[in-house]
């Protein structure tokens, strides 16, 4: 026996593991699968949900009277473990039957059908009958603009609570009551719209059942597509193309840009455009805004509006409005790419087509649930007509493609329509953490120094660490950059700034771990960071393959400024492409008021 390891046997395999290793971890390392429901560990995010609540992972340990929960039992020297004896299987089946005794048997119509952990474990255990019948909980489903909660399907694994409180530090969800009445809820059982929820959707990403799901708007899309009066336009966010293929058998991080475009055409969209175009536009505005603030500091030492904080992510914007309203002046006033696209489409493209804005239906395909909420904000509408009519997330697009029986893998690679399908590599990398600020630096550097960038890729801004920082040299002027992904990391970064410990000039925040590639609307990555890395690599690959890689070089963006917008951050650009924010610290269910 070695002092630094513990030797044990699991299913007749001998192994040695570091002290403190649980049976579950040891088994997993040896390739032995033990089913779990509540346990979830996301190594890179330092997230672990391990309440030991579900009891599905019980195993038999020789010499021990009771079965042991593998997730909570540490390995000891000489331990002999059996993971699938008749006694273990009988216990697991009983546990599962007890869980299912209070679970609605509506798998066929459940939004998680086919993607549900509970369903999968029940299937693996071969449950054919539920012998226990008792009282059933009755909760009224809560439909917020982005997230639907049906607590009748909750198994109290508390993954969502950990995601909301530990990773995101949003604190909207908590376990309330006790015993049979115990449930995960918001404060005072209010609906999510009345809570501190930022709609990041990370709770939906980790929920093992149909208790938490994204609000679906596929019917609205189908209705618009069937209406001959409507001109239906799609815009697709960069992260979607890295993950959509998952539902059609492609490896994680396979770029399916061309097939996605073809699929949207097959579905009946009149125009298929790229949100990346609007991302280039965002860089023109946000980059210029950053330079204006930086020059104001150069001129009179005024740092009131620095660091500039990115505003592309509606989950992050909502978080600042609710938790740090004192920082609202630091947020870039530039709208998110989704809303810039909608604004240009409804104001300009409608005019090009010679039709009323109401005849256009702008559908965004996003990796995100918060984008649905963003569409519902009143400042992004004109006379009650929203700039973006419907936002659907990646899983919904996959659903539409299956619904229409489109053979995705057989589709030819299509091209985006012009003019709003034209984008640079800078717009593409918006989808991953560090991408927005890298894109902004590519443009800001050249505008500030008047000289071309010596090195186009800012490798130091890339990576998956939760908080990163780097200094970029603007011809002798050091520009200090902070990056955070995940709202918990964002909170830590913001607290440093407020304490005066981090004198950044620009900060990029994305609410979801990994950035948009890990968004609440993406195919579930279940904490597998390798999946996120593959998706990020895919975006950097697409960027590297683009002939143009700086937003200000996008010819269609240049033309748009010549034709209508005049100049970045000018009066016209301000009216069309910028927005304002609201202090929602105390409850703040009241919405954002009419457009200025």
């Amino acid at each position, binding site marked *: 026996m070695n002092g630094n390891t513990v030797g044990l046997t699991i299913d007749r395999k001998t192994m040695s593991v570091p002290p403190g290793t649980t049976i579950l971890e040891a088994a997993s390392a040896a390739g032995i699968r033990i089913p779990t429901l509540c346990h979830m560990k996301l190594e890179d995010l330092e997230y672990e949900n391990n309440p030991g609540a579900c009891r599905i992972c019980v195993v038999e340990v020789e010499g021990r009277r009771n079965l042991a929960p593998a997730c909570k039992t540490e390995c000891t020297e000489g331990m002999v473990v059996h993971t699938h004896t008749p006694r273990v299987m009988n216990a697991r089946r009983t546990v599962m039957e007890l869980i299912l005794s209070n679970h609605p048997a509506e798998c066929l119509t459940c939004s998680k059908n086919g993607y549900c952990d509970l369903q999968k474990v029940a299937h693996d255990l071969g449950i054919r009958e539920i012998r226990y019948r008792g009282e059933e909980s009755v909760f009224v489903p809560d439909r917020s603009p982005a997230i639907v909660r049906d607590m009748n399907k909750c198994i109290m694994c508390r993954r969502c609570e950990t995601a909301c*409180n530990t990773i995101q530090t*949003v*604190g*909207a*969800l*908590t*376990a*309330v*009551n*006790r015993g049979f009445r115990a449930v995960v*809820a*918001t*404060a*005072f059982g209010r609906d999510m719209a009345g*809570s*501190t929820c930022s709609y990041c959707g990370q709770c939906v990403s980790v929920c093992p059942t149909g208790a938490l799901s994204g609000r679906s708007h596929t019917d609205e899309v189908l209705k618009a597509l069937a209406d001959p009066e409507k001109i239906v336009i799609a815009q697709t966010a960069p992260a979607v193309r890295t993950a959509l293929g998952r539902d059609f058998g492609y490896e994680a991080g396979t770029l399916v840009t061309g097939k996605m475009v073809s699929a949207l055409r097959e579905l009946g969209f009149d125009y298929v455009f790229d949100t990346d175009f609007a991302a280039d536009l965002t860089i023109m505005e946000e980059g210029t805004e950053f330079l204006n603030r930086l020059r104001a500091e150069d001129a009179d030492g005024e740092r009131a509006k620095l660091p500039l904080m990115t505003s592309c992510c509606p989950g992050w914007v909502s978080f600042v409005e609710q938790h740090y309203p004192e920082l609202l002046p630091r947020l870039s006033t530039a709208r998110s790419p989704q809303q810039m696209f909608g604004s240009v489409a409804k104001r300009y493209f409608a005019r090009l087509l010679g039709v009323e804005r109401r005849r256009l239906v702008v559908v965004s395909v996003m990796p995100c649930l918060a984008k649905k909420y963003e569409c519902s904000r009143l400042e992004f509408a004109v006379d009650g007509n929203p700039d973006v009519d419907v936002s659907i997330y990646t899983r919904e697009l996959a659903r539409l493609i299956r619904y229409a029986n489109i053979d995705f893998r057989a589709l030819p690679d299509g091209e985006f329509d012009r003019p709003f399908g034209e984008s640079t590599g800078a717009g593409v990398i918006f989808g991953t953490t560090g991408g927005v600020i890298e894109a902004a630096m590519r443009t800001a550097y050249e505008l500030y120094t008047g000289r071309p960038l010596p090195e186009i890729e800012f490798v130091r801004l890339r990576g998956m660490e939760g908080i990163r920082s780097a200094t970029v040299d603007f011809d002798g002027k050091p520009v200090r950059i902070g990056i955070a992904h995940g709202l918990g990391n964002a909170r830590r970064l913001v607290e440093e700034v407020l304490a005066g410990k981090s004198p950044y000039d620009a900060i990029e925040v994305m609410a979801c771990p990994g950035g948009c590639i890990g968004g609440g609307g993406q195919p579930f990555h279940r904490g597998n960071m390798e999946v996120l890395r593959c998706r990020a690599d895919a975006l950097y690959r697409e960027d590297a393959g683009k002939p143009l890689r700086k937003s200000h070089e996008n010819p269609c963006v240049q033309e748009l400024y010549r034709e209508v917008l005049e100049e970045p951050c000018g009066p016209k650009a301000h009216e069309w492409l910028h927005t304002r924010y609201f202090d929602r*610290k*105390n409850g703040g269910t009241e919405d954002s008021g009419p457009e200025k």
Partner: protein
Amino acid sequence: MEKEIRNESLPSCVREKVHDICREHGCDPGELIHILHALQRTFGYLPEAVQEAVAAELDIPVARVYGVVTFYSYFTMVPKGKYPVSVCLGTACYVRGAEAVLDEFRRQLEIGVGETTLDGLFSLDCLRCVGACGLAPVVSVGDRVYGRLTPEKVRGILSDYYRAAED
């Protein structure tokens, strides 16, 4: 830095009391349960606005405060009656007919468990074992404990309190 609490619905005296009690406990989130105990002793119950004020003082999500308040049966979000009635449903009391006694209180007071009568005189709760199993079934009203109760005795006990309230 003192956090400003902008809770419009809370009278300033209540707000100050919450502030003082939180300060007495060092505004430490780990003291949440003690703080809630002290506040319930002071106000008799823990309405939403008080929980929101506590969350702001301790700089923690209000959902967490609400989670604690709903977890422990001692905490209540509705004002208790002048004479809080608690029926013991511990094992000994239960097997000796506590449920029938509880039903009689429900019928007489016309309220459910966890509720308070409209005149504010009585509230009705259940608890598990007061350590007087020899007297089962046991009911406490305020600080007084009644043992060996039967449904027939309930009306008499209540009328004593109605008379006391009139005096």
